[in-house]
């Protein structure tokens, strides 16, 4: 490169006159301070650094309060593990939902995918003589395909996720009715022909507690997804796309591929939920979980994951599902009417997210 001269003269001070003093400049730019002002502010700051703690604290407080109101029955190992069983399906759906929400989407079709896949696996294994393992593989493939279909509309046709899944929800719902003829598959028929479908309903007991494999499955799903999201490049890309899709694309992320993978994985997780739901419910019912879509969203937001994407830990959704479960169990044991249970869950959603907002306010 010897021949290129340019206008910059080597080894001499460069730039305009006034820049010659820069050599002595100081490196400090801003002051930092470590002591937050008050007590509440200290709490706020502490939680701000660790926002996943918020749902954990809400959960602990809720358990404590209902322990006081509803008494010993609530606190029994049996009841606490029962809550775990009762939230396991909505919990797994909430994990699938979280993936979408982290990309700034929302999925109104998760429960519809799940029910459709349980109907498919059930019909194949129980009535059509297909080996159970194969039937399950078909359901997994089907769930992933349903997710990818959502992902296709979101990425290639550029439809907003809300609209896409509002549409596919109807589509999956209709297919489900069509395939099942609105008929449930009975527990006894499953036991006879495809007991493996009910695997996740089994479990073990100790000291009065009863833990089903389904509950453990839910926890495992969350841990695996947490690892993928936080410890792999793929996970970082998911957060980046959710945070600012255009910026991520300019930075070289193939946002469409990332989104497709997220939707596909989410559909796969819905198929896992489908399997688990057969164990939980005992039979395969095309009519169940009609409100599962909104319930999974409730768990996600109560768990502090931002609907704007890119912010929040997927573990929050686990705690969110547990909080809702604890609430419902506590209210029931306290003999509150279903009506007022619905009412209370409404306030829970508002309150939980309000606390979360308060914590986040620190940085504004």
């Amino acid at each position: 490169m010897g021949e290129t001269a340019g206008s910059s003269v080597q080894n001499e001070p460069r730039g305009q006159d006034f820049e010659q003093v820069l050599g002595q400049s100081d490196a400090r730019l801003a002051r930092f301070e470590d002591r937050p002002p008050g007590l509440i502010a200290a709490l706020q700051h502490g939680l701000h650094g660790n926002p996943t703690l918020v749902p954990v604290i809400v959960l602990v407080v809720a358990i404590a309060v209902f322990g006081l109101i509803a008494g010993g029955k609530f606190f029994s190992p049996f009841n606490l593990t029962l809550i775990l069983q009762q939230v396991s399906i909505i919990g797994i759906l909430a994990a699938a939902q979280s993936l979408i929400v982290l990309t700034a989407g929302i999925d109104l079709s998760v429960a519809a995918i799940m029910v459709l896949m349980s109907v498919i696996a059930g019909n194949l294994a129980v009535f059509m003589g297909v080996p159970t393992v194969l039937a399950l593989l078909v359901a997994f493939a089907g769930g992933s395909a349903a997710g990818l279909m959502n992902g296709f509309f979101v990425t290639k046709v550029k439809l907003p996720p809300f609209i896409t899944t509002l549409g596919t929800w109807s589509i999956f719902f209709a297919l489900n009715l069509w395939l099942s003829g609105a008929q449930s598959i009975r527990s006894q028929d499953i036991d006879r022909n495809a007991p493996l479908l009910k695997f996740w309903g089994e479990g073990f007991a100790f000291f009065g507690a009863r833990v089903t494999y389904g509950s453990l499955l839910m926890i495992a799903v969350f841990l695996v997804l947490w690892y993928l999201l936080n410890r792999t490049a793929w996970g970082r890309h998911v957060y980046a796309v959710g945070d600012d899709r255009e910026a991520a694309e300019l930075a070289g992320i193939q946002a469409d591929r990332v989104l497709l993978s997220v939707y596909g994985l989410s559909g796969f997780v819905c198929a896992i939920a489908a399997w688990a739901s057969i164990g939980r419910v005992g039979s395969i019912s095309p009519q169940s979980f009609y409100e599962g879509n909104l319930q999974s969203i409730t768990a996600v937001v109560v768990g502090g994951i931002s609907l704007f994407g890119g912010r929040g830990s997927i573990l929050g959704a686990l705690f969110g599902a547990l909080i809702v479960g604890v609430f419902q169990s506590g209210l029931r044991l306290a003999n509150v009417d279903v009506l007022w249970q619905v009412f209370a869950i409404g306030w829970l959603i508002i309150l939980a997210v309000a606390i979360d907002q308060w914590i986040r306010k620190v940085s504004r």
Partner: protein
Amino acid sequence: DVGACLITKTDTNPFFVKMKEGASAKAAEMGIALSTYAGKIDGDVETQIAAVESCIAAGAKGILITPSDSRALAPVVGKAREANILVIALDTPFEPADAADATFATDNFMAGEMIGKWAAAKMGDPAGAKIALLDLNPSEVSVDYLRDQGFLQGFGIDIKDPKDIGDEDDPRVVGHDVTNGNEEGGRTAMENLLQKDSGVNLVYTINEPAAAGAYEALKAVGLEHQALIVSVDGGCPGVQNVADGVIGATAMQFPLLMASNGIEAIAAYAADGTKPVNSEGLDFVNTGVTLVTDAPVEGLPSISSEEALHQCWG
């Protein structure tokens, strides 16, 4: 040619699917052009109203309808009748019942009473009962309270207001919970009531899917032999569950009959303008209920599950 409409509450419930089958078969047999409609979910009043209007627009001769809301659908069927269309309520009566030209239905209160009486007789010692009631949903619609209250009355419990679920104060009632009429709800509701009192030994369920869910919950904690489950409907899977010992007794209804009678009535009306007449002493045509159990009790006529399997929802 004669046109007729069948409007059911939903398409997601086998009960209505059966009804549709019955109506379609009969209509084909009698050369009637049948259009079928349904709400998307239970309580979907708007879709049913729109369906009635479409039937009026299409110039149908008769409408068979299971109203999602006994009162809310009355005005629109009034319009249909003004247009000289025969309106027959199936399964769920209107309020007032004469909002329709006729009603072909099960007596739901009686269905409840039947299984209540059976349970009381079967248990031998009704005083030691601990009863869990698994109802439909928070809205407390008429089938819901009629069956629930009928059951309690049949069992011998003072039900106070017969339209209000849960206002009784008999200590034998452990509690009520809602199931949305499906297995998942049945299971969760049963678990919840077991939490209140693990000694539950009698379980009333709004329908057979809820019963199946309740059984799963009991089985999970090894209490399936402690509690007796009773239900309403008589769908084939339900009857099968009676045979399998999941359900102790169920009150069978006849949706297919409701539908085919309905179609016949429309054909008659189209031919010479005759309208169906109500059963004696009732404001509806009782299509009957039959108790199905494999453990018959004294003084209560019933059929076995084996017999029932031949006529389930026929």
